[in-house]
């Protein structure tokens, strides 16, 4: 069963930069799909198109289709004007490259998503805080200071808090845009280990910050170059046996 189906998806920003060129891609559920390639390849644009965060950007034109299928086979057209983007963003949660904690307490950061959705029961919020922090491997470090400002945490902790904040929304899909680019190897390890566990219950789309991370994490890997999708293949395949010359050159470090 496929979670996302993208057909001929193209995106042009208002400065006439074509960020995505006819992307055809199926993203499966309950696995980690890695989008990799050099900067400017369209990876972030693709993520922001899926959860409609691009609504905030200067987009000139989007063509093609992007559909989200749920367990019961219902199809949600992501690009449709009438799609409820608020509900959509609860299902497709996102972690950004820089850990951006909201200027609130640790606890408030975690309950923010539920509270704006109208959940105010103390018990449910408490449960969500603990559960999401445990999933992000942060609970033991912060359980005694949940009411401290979130900015008191270290960079690595802040990024795991952002991941936990995502999970607290109880989404179906987690999208991560270079989530470990600013982190030390130990924190990176913790995030990666959490993701490996999380894929049992979530569909994960990851833009890695290095080819090595791509190779470590990918169940399915898609190589993007200047807005084009060059190649899609299982992760244990593409990094050993790339099917395209460009993919091989990039993996071997000839450019990028």
């Amino acid at each position, binding site marked *: 069963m496929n979670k996302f189906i993208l057909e001929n998806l193209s995106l042009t920003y208002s400065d006439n930069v074509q960020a995505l060129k006819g992307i055809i891609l199926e993203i499966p559920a309950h696995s980690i799909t890695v989008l990799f390639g050099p900067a400017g390849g369209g990876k972030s644009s693709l993520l922001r198109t899926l*959860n409609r*965060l691009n609504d*905030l950007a200067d987009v000139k034109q989007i063509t093609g289709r992007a559909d989200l299928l749920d367990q019961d086979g219902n199809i949600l057209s992501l690009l449709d004007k009438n799609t409820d983007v*608020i*509900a959509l*963003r*609860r299902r497709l*949660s*996102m972690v*950004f490259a*820089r850990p*951006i904690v*909201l*200027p609130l307490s640790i606890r408030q950061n975690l309950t*923010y*998503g539920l509270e*704006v*959705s109208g959940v105010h029961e103390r018990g449910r919020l408490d449960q969500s805080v603990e559960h999401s922090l445990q999933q992000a491997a942060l609970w033991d470090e912060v359980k005694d200071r949940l009411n401290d*400002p979130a*900015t008191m945490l270290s960079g690595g902790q802040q990024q795991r808090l952002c991941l936990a*904040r*995502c999970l607290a*929304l109880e989404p179906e899909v987690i999208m991560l845009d270079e989530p470990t680019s600013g982190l030390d190897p130990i924190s990176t390890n913790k995030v990666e280990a959490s993701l490996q566990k999380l894929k049992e219950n979530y569909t994960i789309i990851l833009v890695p910050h290095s080819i090595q991370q791509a190779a470590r994490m990918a169940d399915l890997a898609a190589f993007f170059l200047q807005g084009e999708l060059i190649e899609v293949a299982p992760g244990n395949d593409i990094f050993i046996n790339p099917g395209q010359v460009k993919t091989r050159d990039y993996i071997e470090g000839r450019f990028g």
Partner: protein
Amino acid sequence: MDNADKSLKLRSSKRNNIQRLGFAALGLITFFTVLPILYIVVKIFVEGISAISLEFLLGFPTDGMRAGGIMPAILGTVLLTFGVTIAAVPLGIAAAIYLAEYAPDNRWTRLIRLAIINLAGIPSVVYGLFGLGIFVLFFQFGTSILAASLTLGIMTLPVVISTAEEALRTVPRSFRVVSISLSATQWQTIRRIVLPQSLPGILTGVILGLERAAGETAPILFTGVAFYLPTLPSSPLDPTMALPYHLFVITTQVPGMPSEIQYGTALVLLVLVLGLNLLATIIRSRARRRRQW
């Protein structure tokens, strides 16, 4: 040390001297700018402090305002400042939120911004005439606290709007993106993140606007103040006395006025306005210490 090194060192000491000279000159200029302000404050304080007493602050003027207190004028200024707050602050903040968060950047919104900037530069007496025409005569509010508050409110509005918009814009865009990505609506983002973070900045702007309004004479001259009133106003439709106008009256219109009462009145007005200013400074510095970004 060879010659090249020597000349380098010479040149660098020369540049240092020029820099020192420059700093000294700038410091001197700053000192001369502050001097008259210091002189005015000290002079008013020294000449006026002897007039300050409980009777002066809480009593009615007597003997053709040559004696007694200035309580009706103090109360009037407080009432007018309160009126301006109601008239200008909610509207101004709402307009700022619209301009900073919702308005698209097009010819119309640029025109609106231009108009707001220009409104801030209009002489206050013009606002007074405008208030006379619109509120006193057209809406028939008469010479009243209501008309004067609305006139002062319109004068204060541009200050509130532009400082509040500025404060809203200093909140990092990334907070907005994250909040939206967590399924908040734009209004939830504004109410829960943007407004709380920019509130100190907005309050500072509001207080500075109110402070200006509290000290103005021209806008209330035609719209709400009276030379002398034997009783306190009992409704918003009554005229009132006010400190700035009272000061004008007792310094120019009353022969044989004791100068300590004039200076005392000026001192009360000064303390009121500087007090508001101090409040704004406290709010700002507190918020800066607590800010997390």
